[in-house]
């Protein structure tokens, strides 16, 4: 056999990266039967001659992605630096640096400046899973804050914890004196939780904090709702009436409505009433994150940019300890349905989509971005959504051994697919309508494979064309 038969491409333009600190060499790469050549041009001294026998290993790396990008893209203390620009009332605490205090929290957490680490540790013991109240959003316009935690371990005999009370008192002192605990369970569910050691903040113990119950579904009922919706969406034999009754019966849009309503309420409390909000459900890793992340999207224009949305996802879902591995192991078709599965994150994406429908100009990312994030949350060649918490990710060395989804999505070739061509920054809060007439089924996701997507895609393409023509005109 001739060696030359094995050579499919003899020549190619290539860039040689000699090593750190040295400039790259651009030239022509040439493979012969025995050598690999790289020549930068006539008589350049840096020509590379490599005997093929000398090649020990060849590795193909994904385009323009480098390991360890994730840490640089959305550094954990970036959020704190943003807050620190506005106020010095909050500090970065390293109490959780070894994941001792809370296994599902990241190492760096933002807490009131007057509260020492030992207080935090005591407060953590009073909260389920150690998730003590931490800052997740600082509202620049009036200095109110949003915190999240898990439920206090009040129990049947109404235990109290002085440090936890001190922590929340300090929050009120910094944020205007009035507070609202948004519990994502019903009052009844809280009663039941008390029997098993959980509970909620007692009014007497936390002066200044009011309590509000906005029951949001999670876990099994949410998964069932999702499965039923997908079943209905993939059954083309349905009659009109049957379709409507199944759409009604799956209750998915009810969940969307309830979630958006709760998030609006939290956002409204901060923006309009100037109260501090503490959001928690039971574990504080599901519905809590739904509310806090959506409220930020509603209030904060920064979260609506491409990078802002990515850092929101990174901060409020990934680092905040939403157990992606457990929740997103299977999608809607799995035979076995383990108890810990639930499309909470999908519900979040659906709510974001509803926002994008009502405010089509205000989000920098398009439907494509939401679809991409959805797909990668369930199955991905990237490490971004791996594991259940920062601790697990640390132990598995995810950050050094896998590539980051974000650096892949930020490549310029993805621009047309992911970005919203008509984005125009909007400094105002987005108050969506949550009436049933205003909510729509996310056809781009749920009907993705059941109906031809071409007309919508072509319209999207055309939108891009119109906008890019415009930009071309501007530069004239």
């Amino acid at each position, binding site marked *: 056999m001739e060696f030359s038969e094995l050579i499919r491409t003899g020549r190619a333009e290539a860039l040689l990266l000699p090593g750190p600190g040295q400039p790259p060499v651009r030239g022509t790469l040439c493979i012969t039967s025995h050598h690999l050549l790289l020549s930068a041009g006539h008589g350049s001294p840096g020509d590379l001659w490599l005997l093929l026998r000398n090649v020990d290993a060849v590795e193909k790396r994904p385009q323009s992605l480098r390991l360890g990008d994730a840490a640089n893209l959305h550094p954990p203390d970036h959020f704190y630096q943003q807050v620190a620009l506005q106020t010095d009332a909050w500090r970065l605490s390293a109490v959780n640096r070894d994941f001792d205090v809370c296994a599902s929290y990241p190492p760096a957490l933002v807490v009131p400046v007057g509260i020492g680490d030992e207080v935090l540790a005591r407060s953590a013991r009073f909260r389920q899973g150690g998730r003590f109240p931490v800052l997740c959003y600082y509202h620049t316009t009036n200095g109110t804050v949003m915190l999240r935690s898990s439920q206090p371990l009040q129990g049947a005999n109404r235990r109290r914890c002085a440090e936890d009370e001190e922590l929340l008192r300090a929050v009120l002192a910094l944020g205007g004196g009035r507070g609202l605990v948004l519990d994502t369970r019903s009052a009844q569910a809280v009663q039941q939780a008390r029997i098993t050691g959980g509970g909620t903040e007692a009014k007497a113990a936390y002066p200044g904090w009011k309590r509000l119950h906005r029951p949001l579904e999670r876990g099994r009922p949410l998964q069932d709702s999702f499965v039923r919706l997908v079943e209905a969406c993939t059954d083309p034999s349905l009659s009109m*009436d049957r*379709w409507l009754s199944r759409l*009604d019966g799956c209750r998915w849009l009810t969940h969307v409505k309830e979630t958006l309503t709760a998030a609006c309420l939290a956002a409204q409390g901060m923006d309009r009433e100037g109260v501090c909000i503490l959001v928690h459900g039971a574990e504080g890793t599901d519905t809590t994150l739904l509310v806090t992340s959506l409220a930020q999207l509603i209030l904060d224009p920064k979260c609506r940019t491409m990078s802002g949305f990515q850092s929101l996802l990174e901060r409020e879902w990934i680092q905040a300890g939403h157990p992606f591995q457990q929740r997103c192991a299977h999608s809607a078709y799995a035979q076995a349905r383990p108890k810990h599965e639930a499309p909470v994150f999908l519900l979040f994406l659906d709510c974001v989509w509803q926002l994008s429908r009502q405010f*089509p*100009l205000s989000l920098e990312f398009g439907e494509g971005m939401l679809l991409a994030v959805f797909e990668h949350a369930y199955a991905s060649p990237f490490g971004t959504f791996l594991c259940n918490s920062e601790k697990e990710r640390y132990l598995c060395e995810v950050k050094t051994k896998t590539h980051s989804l974000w650096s892949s999505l930020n490549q310029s070739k993805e621009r047309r697919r992911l970005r919203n061509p008509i984005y125009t920054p*909007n*400094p105002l809060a987005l108050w969506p*309508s949550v009436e049933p007439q205003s909510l729509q089924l996310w056809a781009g996701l749920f009907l993705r494979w059941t*109906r031809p997507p071409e007309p919508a895609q072509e*319209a999207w393409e055309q939108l891009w064309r119109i906008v890019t023509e415009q930009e071309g005109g501007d530069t004239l």
Partner: protein
Amino acid sequence: MLSTHISLEDTPTLYSAPSSSTKRSYIWRLKVEQVKLLDRFSTSNKSLTGTLYLTATHLLFIDSLQKETWILHHHIAAVEKLALTTAGCPLVIQCKNFRIVHFIVPRERDCHDIYNSLLQLSRQAKYEDLYAFSYNPKQNESEQIQGWQLIDLAEEYRRMDVPNLNWKLSDANRDYKICETYPRDLYVPRAANKPTIVGSSKFRSKGRFPVLSYYHQDKQAAICRCSQPLSGFSARCLEDEHMLQAINKANPSNRYMYVMDTRPKHRMQSWWASKKDIGRIVVRISSKIWRDEKIRESDEKARLNAMANRAAGKGYENEDNYSNIRFQFVGIENIHVMRTSLQKLLEVNGTKGLSVSDFFSGLESSGWLRHIKAVLDAAIFLAKAIVNESASVLVHCSDGWDRTSQVCSLGTLLLDSYYRTIKGFMVLIEKDWISFGHKFSDRCGHLDGDPKEVSPVFTQFLECVWHLTEQFPQAFEYNEAFLLQIHEHVHSCQFGNFLGNCQKEREDLKLREKTYSLWPFLLDDQEKYLNPFYTPSSQKFTVLEPNTVPFNFKFWRNMYHQFDRTLHPRQSVFKLIMNKNDQNKQLEKEIKELESKIKQQKTRHTDTVLTKESLHCIHADSPALKPSLCFKKEQTLLPVNDAIRTIEGSNTADNRYSEYAEEFSKTEPAVVSLEYGVARMTC
């Protein structure tokens, strides 16, 4: 105050400012102060206070922010006086364009006066009292005539290549002798002579014999329309059979044709059972075809059997005149079912505190979307018969002016891209609805008449078109606003187009002299109705093949909640894109101007002038360049302004969120409920 321009930002209406000549009619008859306007969906009784005026043609409410709400009397469908409350006397006004306003009038006597006046003003007994007869848009006589001549149906038939070898213009109905509800000019197969036409018209309900509605040039197939035959069980009409034969023969490319009965089968059967004198085309034959249809639908083996039978001359009693006709039934319900369905729909979506579940179950039980789907399915069948089989189709329902109009017009909309342009859509409405005698005045209740005649047939047609625009965003030149505007004026009685029930009636009323046509006004405002995504060149959109699986149908919020702004998306993409398109054009124009200026400069040679001019040139250039720079600036500014204007929730004056504010500071909340964007705390 009343002569100020009507600035209805929320409605793209055509109510131009009352001109001086009609100003007299705008002098109010009644003025009531301290009237409260309630928000329809607000759970607390938050309201706007203002003054209510009653003019000869409009009801006007001006609130404390000087925002005006105009309601045309003809738009009012129902006025209701509710039980007296401590705040005053509530008055609920429901409009035909689905606006619902809820006033509270402080004194009961005033309320009673308004109520009585509105009852009288909204229900006219004579056509001459309608708004169109007093409306004067400042056009002179020749403009008025030109306006009416804008849509020329003879021209439209010529566009379809009719008359031609096979189709001719018939003068049989020149004096409305044969059919009062048809137009004067009718197109029939060349083979159909006068006796055939007369005989056929006697056999058909209301004399509406089969005539041409649309001719497909490439396929040589035709869409014809008529009313149901007046046959009993065994009645036959040779002329009618000849007529159908003639239609069939007029299409050389296919030997069979379809007869589409748009009524549901079960109703037909119950009619037979009751032996009413309304039947269908020769029952004997059709029963044969029924079997044929069944066989066609069943499996391959049965098909082979049928073919064997046909070859042996068995199973088919006798080859007769209707042998080349295939019958097709599509189940579109009658006007009464449609009316009740819409009523149910409006009941559901008007409910305060509606849950998602109630909404969907209400949508389902109203059956509205099911009816929309049925209409579209029928149109698709029609289009497919023409495109795939080159077969002519005769469409009929009972009288041939409701369902038939829907199916014919939608079918041609699918077939012919011309009707997807603004002008073409006007032609389509003028042809299949107005000229062929859809009873607009009866169906829309223009005059005080039989409420059982009112039905949203035309609204359904517009909704079907809207569903098509949703599925094919690039195929239509016009946008949703155009459809809404037409709907508005079908009921407004402001223009003459939709008055009366047929062409004869319109001629008797002398509408062309006494009123104005809507179309030129819509054309003048074209920019508002253009779809930025429209790509007329695309080959894909010559024939539309919509998919009618149920999940492609959705509630048309912008129609049924057009005036409930809080339910709408807060930002409009259309507006932005149209702006961008405009800016592109503007920039191109500027380039041209600059180029022409450069040319001008080159032609001027005198030294002194040159120096002056060159200086001047810089000045001339800079203002021209400036705007383009300004564009950039404007562009970045635009969204902010736009946002403030359109993002209602972001406005601090927005009452819904501030309701929460008051309550919040007041008391310790026990339960807080946030409903429909309305946050409320109950203590």
